[in-house]
C-alpha cells in the first residue's frame, strides 16, 4: 500500500495505525537492505514467500523472476529483513567443467564438438543452498506427472517434514539460529536459479512484506 494512502487512513482511523506502522517499518527495512545491495555492482535475490517468487535484481531492477510452486519453512524466530550471503551450493551430482586439451590446429568447429560444454540444462534441479545465520534453503523440482512420481514426491515431502522438524528442535535445544526453507519449483526454473547463483550472492527474505 503506498505510504500516502497509509497516512490518509491513519488520520481517519487510529486503530489501524499500529498495523500500518508495522508494515511501513518492515517495508523500510526491505528498502534499506535493497539500497545497500543496489549500491554494489553484483546481482542479488529477493525471496517473496507471499507472492511465491524469487527476484534476481541488480541496481533495483528485476533482471529475472523465478516462480515458486510451493514454499514451506521452519524457523525458530522471525527472520530479520537484511542481506544474507550465500555460502555454498550443495548437490549430489555436480557437472564438471570440460578441460580443453591443446591439440593440432582445427579446421572448423563442428556442432558435434560442442555438445559437452556446460549449459543450464546440465544444472541440478535438486540442491541445497547454505546461507549465513543458519539459513538453509532446499530446492526441489516439481515431480513429474504419473502415480509413481507423485508417490515418491509425497514420501520425500513427508520425510523432509520430519527431518526439518527434528533439526529445528535439536537446534532449539542447543540455542542455535536455524531456518530451513523448502521450495518446490518447476525444473527449468530450479536449474536456471542454480545457474544464476554464485557463492557470495546476497539474498533478502521478505517475511511478512511483499515486494
Amino acid at each position, binding site marked *: 500500500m503506498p505510504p500516502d494512502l497509509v497516512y490518509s487512513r491513519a488520520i481517519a482511523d487510529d486503530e489501524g495505525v499500529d498495523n500500518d506502522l508495522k508494515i511501513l517499518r518492515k517495508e523500510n527495512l526491505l528498502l534499506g537492505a535493497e539500497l545497500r545491495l543496489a549500491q554494489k555492482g553484483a546481482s542479488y535475490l529477493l525471496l517473496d514467500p507471499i507472492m511465491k517468487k524469487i527476484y534476481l535484481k541488480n541496481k533495483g531492477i528485476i533482471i529475472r523472476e523465478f516462480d515458486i510452486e510451493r514454499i514451506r519453512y521452519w524457523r525458530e524466530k522471525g527472520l530479520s529483513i537484511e542481506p544474507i550471503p550465500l555460502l555454498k551450493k550443495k548437490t549430489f551430482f555436480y557437472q564438471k567443467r570440460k578441460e*580443453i586439451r591443446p591439440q593440432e590446429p582445427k579446421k572448423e568447429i563442428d556442432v558435434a564438438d560442442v555438445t559437452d560444454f556446460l549449459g543450464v540444462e546440465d544444472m541440478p534441479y535438486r540442491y541445497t543452498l547454505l546461507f549465513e545465520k543458519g539459513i538453509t534453503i532446499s530446492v526441489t523440482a516439481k515431480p513429474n506427472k504419473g502415480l509413481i512420481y507423485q508417490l515418491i514426491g509425497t514420501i520425500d515431502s513427508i520425510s523432509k517434514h520430519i527431518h526439518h522438524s527434528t533439526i529445528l528442535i535439536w537446534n532449539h535445544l542447543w540455542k542455535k539460529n536455524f531456518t530451513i526453507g523448502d521450495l518446490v519449483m518447476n525444473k527449468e526454473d530450479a536449474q536456471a536459479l542454480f545457474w544464476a547463483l554464485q557463492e557470495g550472492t546476497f539474498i533478502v527474505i521478505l517475511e511478512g512484506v511483499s515486494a
Partner: protein
Amino acid sequence: MIGMIKRIVSILSIGIISSLLVLEGFAYYISIDRPLAPASPQRSDLNRLITENRTLKEKISRLSPKGVYIVVNTGRNLLYLKKGDKTILEAVISSGSGSILKDPNGEREWVFDTPRGEFEVQRKIRGPTWIKPDWAFIEEGEEIPANWRDRAEEGVLGDYALAFGNGFFVHGTLYTRLLGRNITHGCIRVGDKDLETIYKLSKVGTRIFIF
C-alpha cells in the same frame, strides 16, 4: 502368534504416529511468532516512516539505469536491449562455455566464463580486429608469436564490438549456427543484424547486466 504380531505392529504404529505428532507439535510451538508488546502508535512515527520510505525509494530509483540498458541471460543465451520495463530487442547469443584450459608449458590456467554482474560499455568499435591472446594459440596447439602483428586476425568479430572491460566484448560471429549455445571463451557473440541494432542504440556508459 499372528495375533501377537498384529498387536505389536499396532502398538508400534500408534507409538510412531504419536511421536511424530509430538514432534510436529513441539516444532510448531518453537516456530510460532511471539509478537512483542505493541508500541503505542505515534503520529510522529508514522510521518517519519513515510518520509524515510520516500527517501529510500528515491535513492534506489536514482541507481537504476536511465535510458537504454542491456541484460544478458547466459543460461538461456538471450540478450535483451531494454529501456525501463520495455524490451526493445531480444537477441539469441552465445556466451562462455565454462571450460578450462591449462598451459602445458607453465602454470597458467584459463576458465572461459562470461563474467557476471554489472558492467558498462567502455568502447564502441567498428570493424574490430581480433588480437589473439595466448590462450587462443595454446588451445590450437600453435606457437605463441613474438610479434604482436602476428596475433591480428581480421573478420572474425563481425562488423561491430562493444568492450565492457577486462578484455570482454559483445561482438559478431562467423558461427551463427552456434548461437544459443554456451561455446565462447567468455565474450558474448551476437548475430549481425541484432549486433547492428545494439551497437547503434548503445553508447559509452550503457549498462550491461549479466547473470
